């Protein structure tokens, strides 16, 4: 009995030793899990392949997506009705915003808030006298080509522009600009803006007092308006405008801008030009951010839909690739779902980002039309890219 017991005990010990050996073996090769501490990631510098996608009215915040991987890289703190811009040198994100001391009431405070692009912490809040509340606009808050000045559009309801010295981080001056809005930087001069008389105004801020000059009227501001989310190329000093009916204007931006004769996007695709007449159903441009300019190649990508005049907010069911120099639509990319905003990276192999009412984001290779990534809940707002020009 004792022998048997001993034998059993010996085998139990042996079995236990075996088991212990079996479980102990991996512990010797894998590192022991350690307790963790919380920390914060540091962001990479702004990347030419990144898209900055505004959430939209119901879900503010500007999400950063890597176009190559479709992965989210971070989020810029943009509340509802703010405007977002990137320092050309890549050091800062700028947010023009309006806050009230008691949520939606109390003392109003307007400012340009400066974020470091790497730790994404607030660096400064530059107080300004006011700004428009509108949202979904690209050209109400623009940065000069050298990164020194910010131009902030204001409507209260008189129309003016607040100029901010970003180097000194101080508000500098206010320029009254009646009847004009939707700005672009004008290198070495100040800025230019579209006007309700169909002209382009240029504001020279280099003198003691701002000097405003205007081109002759060239478009019909109430009958065939230019989309105010137009595109410009600071390196080439060229702006590209698109009207509701599909006219494309290019303008050389200088102290005295020169606007070229327009061409029809539909005619550039071999179709009859768009018209303002009711019942004239045609391919028309539309959306909140209906066009994106690939500056290195001079190709413009436009969201197009079938409709009549005054359907200019309708989402696009196709993307048209326009070679601006040749005045030809060289490719038409159908979209499986209508999309409302479009942007393109400024890289040698560009990528498109589109989003729409459903907040879905698609990254598309414009060379093939292939959808590279689909991002659920990416956002429904306007899109910004790094402009290395």
């Amino acid at each position: 009995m004792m022998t048997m017991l001993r034998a059993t005990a010996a085998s139990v010990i042996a079995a236990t030793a075996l088991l212990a050996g079996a479980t102990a073996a991996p512990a010797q090769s894998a590192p022991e899990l350690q307790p963790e501490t919380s920390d914060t990631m540091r962001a990479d510098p702004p990347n030419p392949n990144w898209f900055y996608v505004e959430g939209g009215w119901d879900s503010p915040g500007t999400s950063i997506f890597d176009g190559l991987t479709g992965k989210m890289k971070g989020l810029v703190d943009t509340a509802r009705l703010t405007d977002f811009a990137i320092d050309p040198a890549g050091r800062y994100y700028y947010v023009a915003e309006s806050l009230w001391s008691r949520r939606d009431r109390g003392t109003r405070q307007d400012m340009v808030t400066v974020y470091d692009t790497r730790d994404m912490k607030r660096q400064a809040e530059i107080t300004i006298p006011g700004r428009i509340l509108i949202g979904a606009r690209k050209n109400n808050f623009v940065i000069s080509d050298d990164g020194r000045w910010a131009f902030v559009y204001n409507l209260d309801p008189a129309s003016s522009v607040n100029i901010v010295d970003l180097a000194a981080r101080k508000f500098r001056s206010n320029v009254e600009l009646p009847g004009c809005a939707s700005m672009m930087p004008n290198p070495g001069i100040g800025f230019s803006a579209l006007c309700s008389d169909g002209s382009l105004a240029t504001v020279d801020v280099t003198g003691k007092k701002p000097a405003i000059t205007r081109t002759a009227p060239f478009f019909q501001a109430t009958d065939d308006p230019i989309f105010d989310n137009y595109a410009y190329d600071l390196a080439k000093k060229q702006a590209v405008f698109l009207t509701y009916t599909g006219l494309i204007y290019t303008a050389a931006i200088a102290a005295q801008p020169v606007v070229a004769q327009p061409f029809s996007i539909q005619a550039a695709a071999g179709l009859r030009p768009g018209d303002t007449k009711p019942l004239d159903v045609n391919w028309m441009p539309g959306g909140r951010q209906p066009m994106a300019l690939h500056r290195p190649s001079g190709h413009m990508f436009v969201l197009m839909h079938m409709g009549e005049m005054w359907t200019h907010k309708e989402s696009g069911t196709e993307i048209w690739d326009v070679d601006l120099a040749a005045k030809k639509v060289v490719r038409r990319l159908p979209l499986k779902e209508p999309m409302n905003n479009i942007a393109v990276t400024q890289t040698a192999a560009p990528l498109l980002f589109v989003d729409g009412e459903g907040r879905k984001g698609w990254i598309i290779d414009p060379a093939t039309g292939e959808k590279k990534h689909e991002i659920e809940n990416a956002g429904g707002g306007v899109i910004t890219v790094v402009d290395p020009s």
Partner: protein
Amino acid sequence: MKLFDADAIGETILRRLAGRTSRRGILSRAGLALVAAPVFPLLPVSRAQASKPDRSAEAKTAFARNAQSKDDTKCDYWRYCAIDGALCTCCGGGIHSCPPGAEPSPVSWVGTCINPDDGKAYLIAYRDCCGKPACGQCGCDNTDRETQLYTPQLNNDVIWCFGTSSMEYHCSTAVLVGAAG
């Protein structure tokens, strides 16, 4: 191509006002806000002097051809031809009334809409109701003759809560201003 003189006149008036008014004085700013609203009723007078507009079905926009006059809680109600936002009629308010506790903006953007019952065009002032969080009911975005920001009085994306105690947007009304010719 020149289709809507009333709009152009309205734009001119607003621009002239803005041009003459120094925006540095709070009084002038408030004055502009207060003046801008009564200016719009003058528009139909100018419009009436223009040549008689074509109101045939062929001349109507897609919205006007399909508009109805019975239910002002629907986006296709005729007065909403250029509205953008939540309909106050769905938020406890009315066609020209703000919901309880909200405050109407004294300034607005405008639209020219055709009443299907009489075939006539009317000037509509889209006055925002302000001071409460977004209502969120009956969101509409109609864009007849809706333009861009350089003609702000014809743009329906601007938050028009100027001259109110709070600039928070709640909902939008469609106030009939008068016949537009």
